[in-house]
C-alpha cells in the first residue's frame, strides 16, 4: 500500500523529449490505468516509476520518499511485462521464487511462499514445468505470481494482456481485477486498449504525445472528455466531430450547410470549433421528421447486440450506433436526432473542451 506522487516528470532521449512534464497523484490502493496510443510516453512513464528508465527532470515519490536515485529493487515495485519475460531455463517455481532467492530468503520459507502464490493463481500443478511448456495465459499468470510473491507496495503492468487472444484477455482482465481487490496494492496499468482501460480502472489517465490529457474515473472521461483527443480516442466507434465556425447568432457547421443555435460567452466570432457527439447518443428516425438531420446511409455493420451505421452528412462521415433493427439500405436517406445535452464542444486550435456553449438542435439553413 503506497501512494505515488509524480511531479513535473520529463524524459529526454538525447535531444528528443518524449514526456513533457507530467504531474499525477495516485492514492494508496488505487487501480490506475494509463491509456494512450503507442508512442504517447505511457510506457516510459511506467518504466520511470519502476526505475528502469532514468528520470530526466522532476521527481517521483512513493509513499513520500523520492525514489529518483533508487535502484528498482529498492522502490518496492513489482512489474508484469508485456512479453512475460520469464526466465526460460527456470521452472515455474524457480521463476516465481527468484526474487526471494536473490533476497536470501531460506529455501523452506521460499517454497512455502511459492506454494501460497501458486494456490492463488491456480498454478500448483504447473510448478515443475518450464515456461516453454506453458500456454500464453499460464505464462501470464506466472509473470503475475513473480510480481505478487514480493508483496510489493506497487504493482506495475506494462500492457500485460496484449499478447493474449481475445477470450483469454477478458478472463485475465477479471482475474487481475479480482487480484487487486484481494491484495489492494496500488496498481498502475498501462494499455492502449480502451476496453481494458475502462473496465479495470478506478481512475483513468489518458496520455497523448507525452502529456496527460485527462485524469478521471472511466465514466467521467467518457461523458466529459477534456479534449478533442480524449473524445475521439475513448469510445468505439469514435465520437463524431463536426467542424464549425462561430457566427453572430450561433455556429455554422459543415461549411455553412447547417447551423446550430447556441448562446456563447467569451468565444469570438469567427473562432473555429468542433462539435462532437457520440454515435450512441444519436437516434435514427424516419427521414423528414421535424428537427431531424437528413443523411445518406453508407454502410451498416452488424455488431450482434447493436448495429453501427455509417452515414454521409453533407459530405462529412458520421456514425450512429443503435440497438434497434435498421431497415434502411445503403444509399437510402434517414433522419438523425440528438439531444443538446449530448453535444461536446472543443476548440479547433487547442483541442481543449469548451463549456461556454449552450446548444440547441441544429436546423437546416433555409
Amino acid at each position: 500500500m503506497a501512494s505515488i506522487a509524480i511531479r513535473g516528470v520529463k524524459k529526454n532521449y538525447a535531444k528528443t523529449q518524449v514526456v513533457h512534464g507530467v504531474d499525477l497523484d495516485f492514492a494508496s490502493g488505487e487501480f490506475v490505468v494509463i491509456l494512450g496510443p503507442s508512442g504517447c510516453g505511457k510506457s516510459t512513464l511506467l518504466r520511470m516509476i519502476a526505475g528502469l528508465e532514468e528520470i530526466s527532470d522532476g521527481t517521483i515519490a512513493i509513499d513520500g520518499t523520492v525514489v529518483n536515485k533508487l535502484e528498482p529493487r529498492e522502490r518496492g515495485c513489482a512489474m508484469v511485462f508485456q512479453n512475460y519475460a520469464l526466465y526460460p531455463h527456470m521452472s515455474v517455481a524457480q521463476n516465481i521464487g527468484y526474487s526471494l532467492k536473490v533476497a536470501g530468503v531460506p529455501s523452506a520459507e521460499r517454497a512455502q511462499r511459492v506454494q501460497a502464490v501458486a494456490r492463488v493463481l491456480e498454478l500448483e500443478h504447473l510448478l515443475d514445468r518450464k515456461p516453454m511448456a506453458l500456454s500464453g495465459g499460464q505464462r501470464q499468470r506466472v509473470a503475475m505470481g513473480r510480481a505478487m510473491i514480493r508483496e510489493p507496495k506497487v504493482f506495475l503492468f506494462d500492457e500485460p494482456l496484449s499478447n493474449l487472444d481475445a477470450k483469454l484477455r477478458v478472463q485475465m482482465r477479471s482475474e487481475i481485477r479480482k487480484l487487486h481487490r484481494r491484495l489492494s496494492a496500488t496498481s498502475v496499468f498501462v494499455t492502449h486498449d480502451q476496453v481494458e482501460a475502462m473496465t479495470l480502472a478506478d481512475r483513468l489517465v489518458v496520455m497523448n504525445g507525452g502529456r496527460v490529457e485527462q485524469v478521471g474515473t472511466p465514466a467521467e472521461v467518457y461523458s466529459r472528455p477534456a479534449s478533442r483527443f480524449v473524445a475521439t480516442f475513448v469510445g468505439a466507434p469514435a465520437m463524431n466531430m463536426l467542424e464549425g465556425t462561430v457566427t453572430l447568432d450561433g455556429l455554422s457547421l459543415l461549411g455553412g450547410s447547417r447551423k446550430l443555435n447556441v448562446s456563447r460567452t467569451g468565444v469570438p466570432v469567427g473562432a473555429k470549433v468542433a462539435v462532437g457527439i457520440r454515435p450512441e447518443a444519436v437516434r435514427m428516425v424516419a427521414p423528414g421528421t421535424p428537427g431531424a438531420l437528413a443523411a445518406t446511409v453508407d454502410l451498416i455493420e452488424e455488431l450482434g447486440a447493436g448495429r453501427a451505421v455509417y452515414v454521409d452528412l453533407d459530405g462529412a462521415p458520421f456514425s450512429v450506433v443503435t440497438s434497434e433493427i435498421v431497415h434502411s439500405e445503403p444509399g437510402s436517406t434517414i433522419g438523425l436526432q440528438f439531444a443538446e445535452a449530448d453535444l461536446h464542444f472543443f476548440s479547433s486550435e487547442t483541442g481543449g473542451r469548451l463549456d461556454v456553449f449552450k446548444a440547441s438542435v441544429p436546423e437546416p439553413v433555409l
Partner: protein
Amino acid sequence: MVERTPILNFFTHLILFVGFVFCVAPFVIVAIAASHNLKDVNDVPMSLLPGSDFWVNIRTAWTTADLGPKLLNSFIMAFGVAAGKVIISALTAFSIVYFRYPGRMLMFWLIFITLMLPLEVRIVPTYAVVANVLEPYQAIMDLTGLSWLIEKVSGVQVSLSLGLLNSYSGLILPLVATATGTFLYRQFFLTVPDELTEAARMDGAGALRFFVDILLPLSRNNMAALGTIMFLWAWNQYLWPLLITTDQSHAMAVTELKQLIPNVGGAPEWHIAMAGTLIVMLPPLIVVVLMQRWFVRGLIATEK
C-alpha cells in the same frame, strides 16, 4: 527449394559420398599404415589390406615418444585454453553488451583488432613478454625515470622479472587473449530480450547475479560450442609450444610427434609414426563426439 526426385536424391547422395571418401581416406590410410610392419609399410605401393602389427606399433610409438606425459600436458593446455577462453569471452561480451561506460566502443575495437593479429603475427613480442611478463612495466618505469628515482631514494635497483617460459601459464595465457569468443557471445547476448534483463533488475538481481543466474545458464550451448572449438584449436597448436617449451617436461603431444618421424639415415619407421599420429588424434576426436550435440546447437542460432 526442397525438391525430391529419385535422380536428384541419387546425385546428392553421390556427392555426399564422394566428399565423405575424400575426408576419410587419409585417416584410413594412416590407420592401415599403422598396422603394417617395417617391410610392408615401405612397399610401393603400400598394401591397403590391414596388417597385423597394429597394437605392437601403438605400444612402440607410445614408449618411444613417451606420449603419456605429453598427452597429459597437451590436455592441460588445451583444457586451460578452452576454459580460459570461455570465461574471458563471456565476461568481455557481458561488459560490452550490458554496460554503458566511456570508452566502451574503444574497448570493443581494441578487442576487434586482436582478430587481425593472430599469435603467429605477434609471436616475437609475445615471446619477449612471456620471457619476462614484467618487462613492459620495467620499461615504463625506466622511461619515466621512476626506477632511477627509486634507486636514488632507497638505493634499491629496480629490476622486475617474472618468466613464464616452460610453464603451463606461459603456454596457455597468450592463446587465451583473442577475440573470437567475445564475438560469439556478443551475438548471443544481443538476442537475449531486454525484458529479461529488466525482469531480473525488478527481482533485485545485480549485474553479477544476472550474469551468473540468467545469462550463463542461457548460454550453455554457446559455451559448449566455443569450448569445443577452442579445445581443438589449442590441441593442434604447434608453433607456440615449440617456441617456449625447451624443457621436455612441458612438451606437447603434437610437437613431440616429430620424434617419431624417421630421420635421414635412420630406419624408415613410418608405421610407428602413423601409430603415434593416431594416438594424438584420438582425444580431440573424443571431445568432438561427446560435445557434438551441444556444439551444433550452439552454432545454429538460438532455440525458441
